[in-house]
């Protein structure tokens, strides 16, 4: 019963749920996913990312974080403290206990194929698109935070305060939950996510995991890669190599 939608259905649902709430607090209309591209979202694609921790420098990760903040408009909350501030993408430093090897990596929503956040969400606000991107419908979210309890990657944030100056394509709202959208608004226009674009090397590869001609598909065939907490069998869309 995962709520998997094609784009047309999605827009339809969105418009239905937005009757009466057509505009978010700051007057932003909900046009997030209604891009010019008319190709429906199908399950023939599966968007994913491969992050090579050997190539990724700390500066790259910092760049990814600020690119995401700039693109999506989070991180300038005035009152939220430390752990209350949203963090759609985080910089992690991990040390192997046996070898002492230190790796740096970026951690964001892993866009799980079997997302626990979607399973537990009582109102279907958490949902997975046909192409594997996991999103929160801000109009259905009641802020119960059960999805945050269920996410094994600490990928979701709760908006703890009233927001100002939001991005037009990314309506956010106090009392609801949010996480990395894989920059779906860009991906639907054929662009790459902001964090990927910010990295100059090929330390982060974005693309369609199913497409045998895509760079990500081909690279994944040749390098050792891992999913974080692979033991949970969530089949994540974000893969890492070098850890």
């Amino acid at each position, binding site marked *: *019963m*995962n*709520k998997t939608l094609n784009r047309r259905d999605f827009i339809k649902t969105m418009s239905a749920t937005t009757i009466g709430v057509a505009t978010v607090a700051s007057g932003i209309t909900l046009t997030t996913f209604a891009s010019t591209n008319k190709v429906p979202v199908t399950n023939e694609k599966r968007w994913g990312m491969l992050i090579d921790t050997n190539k990724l420098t700390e500066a790259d990760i910092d760049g990814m974080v600020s690119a995401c903040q700039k693109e999506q408009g989070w991180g300038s*909350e005035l*009152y*939220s*403290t*430390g*752990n*209350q*501030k*949203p*963090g759609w993408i*985080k*910089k*992690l*430093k*991990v*040390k*192997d*206990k*046996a070898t002492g090897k*230190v790796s740096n990596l970026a*951690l964001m929503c892993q866009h799980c194929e079997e997302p*626990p956040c*979607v*399973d*537990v969400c*009582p*109102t*279907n*606000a958490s949902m997975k698109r046909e192409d594997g991107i996991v999103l929160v419908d801000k109009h*259905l*979210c*009641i*802020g*119960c*935070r*059960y999805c*945050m*309890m*269920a*996410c*094994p*990657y*600490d990928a*979701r*944030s*709760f*908006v*703890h*305060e*009233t927001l100002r100056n939001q991005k037009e394509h990314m309506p956010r709202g*106090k*009392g*609801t939950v949010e996480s990395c959208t894989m920059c779906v608004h860009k991906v639907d226009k054929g662009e790459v996510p902001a964090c990927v674009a910010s990295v100059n090397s090929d330390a982060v590869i974005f693309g369609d995991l199913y497409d045998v001609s895509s760079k990500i598909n081909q690279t994944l065939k040749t390098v050792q890669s891992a999913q*974080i*907490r692979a*033991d*949970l069998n969530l089949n994540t869309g974000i893969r890492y190599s070098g850890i």
Partner: protein
Amino acid sequence: MSNIRFEQIEGKSLGFYALIAGLGGLVLAALGSAYYMEHHGHFVTGMSNRIVWGMPHVFALFLIVAASGALNVASISSVFNKKLYKPLSRLSGLVALSLLAGGLMVLVLDLGRPDRLIIAMTEYNFKSIFAWNIILYNGFFVVVAVYLWLLFERRMNKFSRKAGLVAFGWRLILTTGTGSIFGFLVAKQAYDAVIMAPMFIIMSFAFGLAFFILILMASYQWTNRPLEDAVVNRLSNLLGVFVVAVMYFVAVYHLGNLYLAENTGVENFILFDGGIYTKLFWYGQIILGGLTPTVLIYHPATKGNRSMLGLASVLIIIGGLIQLYVIIIGGQAYPMELFPGKEILEGYGGVAQYSASLPEIFLGIGGVALAIIAVTFLVKLLAFLPESLADNAAQNK
């Protein structure tokens, strides 16, 4: 049986109005707190992205769990046909409904968007235990209300036993659902255990009965109605059995977890080096809320003494709140194992800090106050209480 007489309480004394006023004040404080948190956003609370469920959830889940347990007395009379408990069935149903109302109030008012309650009622994801719980909670109201009506309506009395059976089954499923909220969270080391569900059921028996006993003793004391030992001693024994059973389940749960290598981290955290959580576990949950009431109930020196039974009940309630605090907050505070075999130096990890803010605490207490105020009002409005529970009146029937 038929000559048990039920009667409303007078509810005209100064004490009655003082009680209502005091409780009303607490409910108002809770509503004010909820408004304050909702107006500013949750940044005014101690909750964060690591501790997403705070003090309100501790109270809410405690009340919801206790609600199902408060129905015990009615269940025993209906399901197992124990005559001694029959006169208490109405009160038992009432306490159950009131506790649930209190718990749900807290749960709903702590939502990020409480104004969207209607969405929670109309948009269901049937894969979500939470969505199931919403249905179960609403159904509990209906089932118990019908049961109460059958008890009140003399001509319908004969159906009450069947309704009691349904209510009994319903509330077992309900508490299984509540326990499963945690049992299904694979991500967190402290949860994800099948034993969560039965443990919650037995917790509900203990917490609910403790509430029931306190309300029963208080209402008979304050209205000068006779309440003799036969009833009280039975309830006391039952309470003792439940408390010991809770401790047994807690022991099995922790021993089982210690056995699984992947969970030794969180077990050590709760049992040995978790600072405040370890203290709360041993001193609060086990000694204060488990061992002490057991001694009070069974020790020859205190056995049969009503004040001691009252004290034991209060301790069970406090211990129960502490137990839920350790489960809910402690379970979140301990970091998830993102990279087994690796140490996270930066970005995530460490024990999350949490201290409940005043509005959170007020909101929680307000839920308890709402439950008690509901009972107080309704026993005045309708005939929930037998006019006498004197030994001869209760026993011979």
